[in-house]
């Protein structure tokens, strides 16, 4: 077994025993990246030198008896979370040469815990997309099957973990961008409750929906990552002052006394039969572990795509106004200031980003605000109420993550609405601000991974991790195949 094959918990055991050093482990991951990432494209930036320095420091700290909870563990960070002195491209030509002057809070927390940052993971441009194909520097590929997408927008973060290039990674989830690529690549991915993890240093897409979260090879590793990054931050006034429980300690209890709700609207037409079969099997697994299964209803589910694709682009159109070629990022000269703005933004942004800026600007423009933004925000209330009502009947919601397994690269190229509709099972989570996790449920007959989605009420990450851990234990899936 090579060191890069180790997950977080296994790495830590070897590091603690002294049978492996962080430098050896980091070198092994860097060699793995060197060998496979040409085919996978999970990384935009690899920081070999910085990673090896961090690994040396981790080894020294461990020898001195001051090892943090991720001491010496190699991780990747989505390329929209600032890591000081590394590029933060957001998958866009606009920020191709932007170098972060500071660390995002989630990154600071990783560093304080002793994690080794290997580099920055590929993603859809400004996190806008469902397959990472809007990235200006090429889309990451699904490590499980050649020719297929890794999902998005955190496709690189998911692919890097699935291809064993790093033990774990960070991504961000605005409408499914952690859970969906986790499902498509066969790894664990968690979107925490809105406000659980600081957004400071996370490049903003839609500020009322964005949340930072981890990818890992198993639920226990995911719990450890969650422990490190969670918590109130004075630098993010929307982070919430809520105690952070011991996520790892909660995992191993059984599920007796837990009720899992099956939202009937998540199992309607358009759901791939193989995906349904795998998720139904997951529901049986939860039952076998002692969970009580009930059917519940989230009646406004069919409206979430329409509401989301007004709210998220509206917020994006405002957030992305900052890219004007003045204080940072790409600039294309023009004969006056206005021309410079237009030249910069027209050349710096890709088509999907422009499309969303146009939708958002239109929805917020004079005369249309009530019909679009206000209406969508009212529907958001109804979606939130659906969840509140469902969680009076159950502790977790269990469903598919995405209606289909991974699709072929290029499939949705000219049909943005079809791509948006594929997000229908993950968008409501963000509109309601509740936590969600994708845990591998199995593979289709053609070998594509399918995740099981668990959603919980606000701040119920502990419950989700416990249900996810039990699911994983019950299913005992073989290690994912890698097709490189």
């Amino acid at each position, binding site marked *: 077994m090579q060191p890069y094959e180790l997950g977080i918990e296994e790495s830590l055991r070897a590091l603690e025993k002294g049978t492996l050093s962080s430098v050896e482990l980091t070198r092994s991951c860097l060699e793995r990246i060197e060998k496979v990432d040409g085919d996978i494209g999970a990384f935009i930036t690899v920081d070999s030198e910085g990673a090896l320095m961090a690994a040396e420091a981790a080894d020294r700290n461990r020898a001195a008896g001051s090892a943090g909870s991720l001491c010496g563990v190699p991780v990747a960070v989505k390329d929209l979370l600032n890591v000081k002195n590394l590029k933060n491209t957001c998958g866009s030509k606009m920020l191709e040469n932007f170098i972060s002057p500071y660390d995002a809070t989630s990154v600071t927390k990783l560093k304080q815990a002793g994690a080794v940052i290997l580099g920055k993971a590929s993603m859809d441009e400004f996190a806008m997309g469902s397959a990472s194909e809007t990235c200006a520097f090429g889309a990451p590929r699904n490590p499980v099957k050649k020719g297929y997408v890794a999902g998005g927008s955190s496709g690189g973060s998911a692919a890097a973990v699935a291809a064993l290039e790093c033990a774990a990674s960070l991504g961000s989830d605005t409408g499914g961008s952690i859970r969906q690529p986790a499902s498509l690549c066969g790894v664990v991915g968690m979107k925490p409750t809105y406000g659980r993890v600081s957004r400071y240093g996370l490049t903003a897409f839609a500020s009322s929906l964005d949340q930072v979260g981890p990818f890992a090879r198993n639920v226990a590793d995911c719990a450890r990552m969650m422990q490190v990054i969670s918590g109130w931050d004075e630098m993010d006034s929307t982070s919430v002052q809520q105690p952070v429980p011991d996520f790892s300690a909660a995992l191993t209890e059984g599920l007796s006394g837990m009720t899992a709700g099956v939202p009937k609207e998540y199992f309607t037409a358009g759901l791939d039969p193989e995906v349904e079969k795998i998720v139904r099997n997951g529901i049986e697994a939860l039952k076998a572990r002692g969970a009580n299964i009930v059917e519940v209803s989230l009646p406004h589910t069919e409206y979430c795509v329409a509401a989301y694709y*007004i709210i998220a682009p509206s917020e994006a159109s405002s957030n992305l106004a900052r890219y004007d070629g003045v204080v940072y990022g790409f600039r294309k000269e023009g004969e006056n200031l206005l*021309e410079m703005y237009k030249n910069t933004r027209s050349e710096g942004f890709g088509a999907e980003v422009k499309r969303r800026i146009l939708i958002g600007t239109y929805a917020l423009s004079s005369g249309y605000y009530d019909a679009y933004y206000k209406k969508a925000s009212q529907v958001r209330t109804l979606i939130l109420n659906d969840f509140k009502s469902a969680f009076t009947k159950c502790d977790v919601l269990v469903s598919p993550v995405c209606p289909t397994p991974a699709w072929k690269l290029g499939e949705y190229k000219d049909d943005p609405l079809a791509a948006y509709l594929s997000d229908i099972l993950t968008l409501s989570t963000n509109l309601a601000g509740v936590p969600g996790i994708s845990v591998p449920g199995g593979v289709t007959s053609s070998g594509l991974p399918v995740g099981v989605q668990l959603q919980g009420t606000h701040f119920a990450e502990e419950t989700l991790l416990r249900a996810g851990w039990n699911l994983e234990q019950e299913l005992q899936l073989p290690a994912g195949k890698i097709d490189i």
Partner: protein
Amino acid sequence: MNMKISQEDVQHVANLARLRLSDVELATMTGQLDTILSYVDKLDEIDTTGVSPTTHVFPLSNVFREDIVRPSLKQQEALKNGPETDEESFLVPKII
């Protein structure tokens, strides 16, 4: 067919958003935005009379902190990512 949005509307919005669209882009975007906005009309199926809008899931308001002077980015660091700068400022095309 009744279009939700015309090329003139898209041109207007593009100008508000400081984007310039080529003729081809304008035609493609108009078609795509029309499809998306027609789909969004689905929201009109729901009666939202009296429903208050949610812009934020937790009703946080006035998150205050003490106004204490703290170190922040140094001027030279802040200027580092600037596309065009001199010793102490960002440079832009002539405005007046």
